[in-house]
């Protein structure tokens, strides 16, 4: 079988559509803010008299949700790419360029996250309040004070800037981007030079990346998400965040592959590759549920107040009680039942319905991880949530598609390409 180089053309129309999406998102967000500051404001203030609540808090939290969610998509795209090399997988040679393109969001994600932390850190993270660590203060919190080193080391005497926390953030984004950059360069070098040298180098680099990613993704989950509920902790949390990121990325890869295929591109991708991607989405939806439930069941069963508070805030709560079950339906029941038959995974019609459900469902999952701990009773879901999601989604897709159009859609010199062409399941 011969292969002709294929390129994705990021057309002016597609660019315009994404700009319209971002513009609509900004409009919807502004509209939501205006409505919030005129309507219902007086009601919210009564709930939370201590901390004055305003639309800034809600916007900050929504931005943080999107930061986490899209950072995850970017880095787990690179993780998928690296995994293929470390596992010496052959089938995926035809689709590897798509997850690789996700990594281009990393520098933007890092900058956005740093800026958001400095701009809104106090609205999101309770532990950033200085009087928590002041023994003479009324607000002194001995539990958080004991965790001080995790955020402020080595400046633990008079904490001002969380050096250790920000250092980790910089380190992770730095490492991730560095390794992504090296992998991408090797991949493009292979296009020009051929041979197997690049493949072997990428395999070594991928193995190193996987080790670094295993640690950094977990710590990132504790830092950026779990530390919001500062008193609470769960040893499963790193995996839980990773499982959510991973299945979202798999769903997005599948969705983009199907859309590109419908545009007549990716001619070397056949039903068997689609089937494998479908199996990935199905299997890791179940994996996410397994992790989610493992965390939930132990806390439910042990019934220790300092642990159950996490689910009391989310499940036994008028505000989030419904969405708590929506989360399980979107991310478990739908993909589990809809993707169970073999044909559903082989044909794009059902995958095209299920993957957006999963992609949206995991946004809801991150919403549930972040909002109840930050906004408490003032949280909600409305225009601001939807608008910020559109802005970030549009920007992310713009960066990804733009970089996808800069290189061939599959590596013609990949040593695994022949295996991928003959893939049969």
């Amino acid at each position, binding site marked *: 079988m011969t292969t002709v180089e294929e390129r994705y053309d990021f057309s002016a129309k597609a660019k315009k559509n994404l700009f319209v999406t971002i513009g609509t998102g900004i409009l919807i967000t502004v509209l939501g803010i205006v409505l919030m500051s005129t309507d219902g404001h007086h009601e919210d203030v009564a709930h939370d008299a201590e901390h004055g609540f305003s639309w800034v808090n809600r916007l900050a939290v929504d931005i943080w949700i999107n930061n986490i969610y899209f950072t995850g998509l970017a880095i787990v795209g690179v993780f998928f790419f690296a995994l293929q090399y470390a596992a010496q997988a052959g089938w995926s040679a035809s689709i590897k360029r798509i997850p690789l393109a996700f990594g281009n969001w990393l520098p933007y994600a890092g900058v956005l996250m740093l800026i958001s932390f400095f701009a809104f850190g106090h609205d999101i993270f309770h532990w950033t309040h200085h009087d928590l660590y002041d023994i003479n203060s009324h607000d002194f919190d001995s539990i958080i004070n004991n965790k001080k080193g995790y955020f402020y080391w080595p400046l633990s005497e008079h904490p001002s800037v969380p050096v250790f926390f920000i250092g980790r953030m910089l380190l992770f984004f730095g490492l991730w981007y560095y390794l992504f950059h090296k992998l991408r360069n090797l991949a493009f070098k292979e296009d020009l030079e051929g041979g197997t040298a690049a493949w072997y180098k990428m395999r070594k680099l991928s193995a190193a990346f996987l080790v670094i990613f295993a640690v950094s993704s977990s710590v990132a989950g504790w830092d950026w998400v779990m530390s919001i509920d500062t008193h609470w902790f769960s040893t499963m949390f790193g995996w839980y965040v990773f499982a959510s990121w991973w299945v979202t990325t798999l769903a997005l890869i599948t969705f983009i592959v199907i859309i590109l295929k419908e545009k007549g591109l990716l001619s070397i991708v056949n039903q068997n590759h689609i089937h494998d991607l479908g199996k990935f989405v199905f299997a890791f939806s179940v994996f996410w549920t397994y992790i989610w439930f493992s965390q*939930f*069941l132990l806390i439910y*069963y042990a019934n220790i107040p300092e642990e159950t508070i996490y689910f009391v805030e989310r499940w036994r709560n008028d505000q989030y009680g419904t969405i708590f079950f929506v989360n399980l339906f979107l991310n478990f029941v739908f993909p589990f039942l809809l993707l*169970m*038959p073999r044909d559903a995974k082989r044909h794009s019609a059902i995958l095209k319905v299920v993957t957006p459900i999963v992609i949206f469902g995991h946004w809801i999952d991150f919403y549930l991880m972040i909002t109840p701990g930050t906004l408490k009773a003032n949280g909600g879901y409305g225009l601001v949530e939807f608008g910020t999601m559109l802005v970030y989604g549009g920007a992310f897709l713009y960066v990804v598609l733009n970089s996808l159009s800069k290189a061939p859609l599959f590596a013609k010199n990949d040593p695994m390409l022949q295996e991928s062409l003959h893939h*049969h399941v």
Partner: protein
Amino acid sequence: MSNSKFILGVYEEEDILLLAIKNVRAAGVKIHEVYSPFPVHGIDDVLGYKRSKLSIAAFMFGLLGTSLALTLQVGMMGFDWPMIIGGKDFIPYPSFVPVIFELTVLLAAYGMCFTFFIISDLKPWAKPRIFDLRITDDKHVMAIDLDKNHLDVGKLDKLLKDSGASEVNQKNFDDV
């Protein structure tokens, strides 16, 4: 099934075998079965096999397991001998999930396995028809039931030879 006659085409390579199956079927011959020492990719497609309904059976057995686990636990914990455990309700559904999962998987696996044994007529006392001992070693064998094909042996012999068979044999069974 008594006194059945088969004509056997013996093939050396799986690529030749796949092509031969296509050609033989195109000539209007019904193939009884093809035996190979290892799984051959794409062989069920060229043989025109319909997808097995085994997965539906597995799903049904899984559902049976789910309902059995629910009935078991709700019956025992809710009605037969209610106990307060950890301050939970008498019927705490989240605690039931591990057992629901285990019984679903157990019944789906066993159910699928035994369904497969039954539809494949696999039993310890079954007397297998051995067409050619070399199918467990290095030869692929295509078996054609002479009673079901109204072609004479000479023509079939030529057809199989032309399609790449290294030898063509006959085999008779007079089992019950």
